[in-house]
């Protein structure tokens, strides 16, 4: 761990999204822990307590949070993007 303050929480190392713990501006570096090691990602602008994509997520791919599937990408989501209702659909059947 380094001295940089953590600004996002990754719950499971399997997750492809993290939750930011402060409002982040476009271009701002977000810092989180994966398996005890610090990682960073550049935010595209994500509000406090919302999710940030930690890698590119292709349309139709599963979104993982808590180590579980929480939805699927409705469009290609670039790394660092805000992941929310505009680009994710529920997998719960109609």
């Amino acid at each position, binding site marked *: 761990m380094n001295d940089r303050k953590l600004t996002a*929480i990754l719950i499971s190392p399997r997750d492809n999204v993290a939750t930011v713990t402060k409002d982040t501006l476009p271009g701002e570096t977000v810092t989180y822990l994966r398996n005890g090691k610090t990682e960073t990602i550049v935010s595209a602008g994500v509000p406090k*307590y919302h999710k940030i994509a930690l890698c590119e997520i292709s349309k139709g791919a599963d979104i993982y949070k*808590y180590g579980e*599937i*929480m939805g699927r990408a409705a469009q290609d989501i670039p790394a660092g993007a805000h992941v929310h209702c505009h680009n994710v659909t*529920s997998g*719960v059947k109609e």
Partner: protein
Amino acid sequence: MKFYGFRRPDGTVGIRNHVLIMATVGCAAETADLVAKNLYGAVSFINQNGCGESEKNLQRTRDVLIGMAANPNVYGVICIGLGCEINRMDEFIPMLRVRTGKPVEQLLIQEEGGTINAAAKATKMAQRMIIEASRCRREECDLSELILGIECGGSDATSGLASNPVMGLVSDAVVAAGGTAMFSETVEMIGAEHLLAKRAATPEVAEKILERVRFREAEQAAVGDDVRKTQPSPGNRDGGITTLEEKSLGCIHKGGHTPVMEMLDCAAPPTKKGLVLMDTPCYDMLSVTAKAAAGCQLIVFTTGRGNAIGNAVTPVFKVTANSDTAKKLEDNTDLDMSPVLTDGVSLETMADETLKDLAEVLSGRLTKAEVLKFGYSEACISRICDYC
């Protein structure tokens, strides 16, 4: 952990000592309120049912009314009816008697000659009962005698990250001490039901969890509704929750890590110790009412956006891990868990702090909602084709 509660003749333990003025039909609810609001030590809650309802709905009404009356936080009950309702007093009282031997009085507005006469008679009955109740003394009790309800409402991303996981550890501690922890809100299990079914104590419990989840989805679909249109709620979405399954995955953390011993029907009292689930919609008012009717003596309510509700018979202790909410809704929030997210306080440390607070509340410390005298209008009874 010990606490000081009221030991009831049936062996249960109450953490409050209310006399309940209960309308057995909607037509008597104002009269019941007229009695309760003037008396120290009396509580009441709004009941809009008990007549003009189908047989199955009548059964749900009776399950909730009987459960509220039987809750160990209630010393005794004054039942007020109208006289011509479907929920006939002469049928209802024997059903209530099967569940509880506590003091019960009854009267009908039509027999007493109107609201004022009925209220006067009920007030005299209640005054005598409240004085009797006041002779009860708190005794040392054990966590094994507790049924702790855990509710979540107005969730945001902090609920799944902190307040629900903290309550999961509290739930584990209650279960380890031989007590019972209960959570409900079946709609908020959709998308996470496979994880709960895996933790079921028996294959029958696992199947009932899965069956109830399927039923809740189908129930909405049968009237042309889609549960995903109302869940997550607008506030959940503003707070960073995107999909129903994300909400569910966060919600089930409040049940900790122990096996699921049973999946109860709405308002049914647990038959087992340990972690139990109850099948209810996720409308908080309804789910809290059902937990109180199932015998929970205390409910911890985790919230992200903030919440104001209480309950007439069961104290509702509010916690949040959202630092903004803890400040803005300070008068509704009993415990601020936000240091978990802002100061790196561990979930375990916050769970210990929560248990210390809960021991105080179990022993008589009031919740914010109790001081505000909340609860009368905050009762909601489950329906056939239900809330979501």
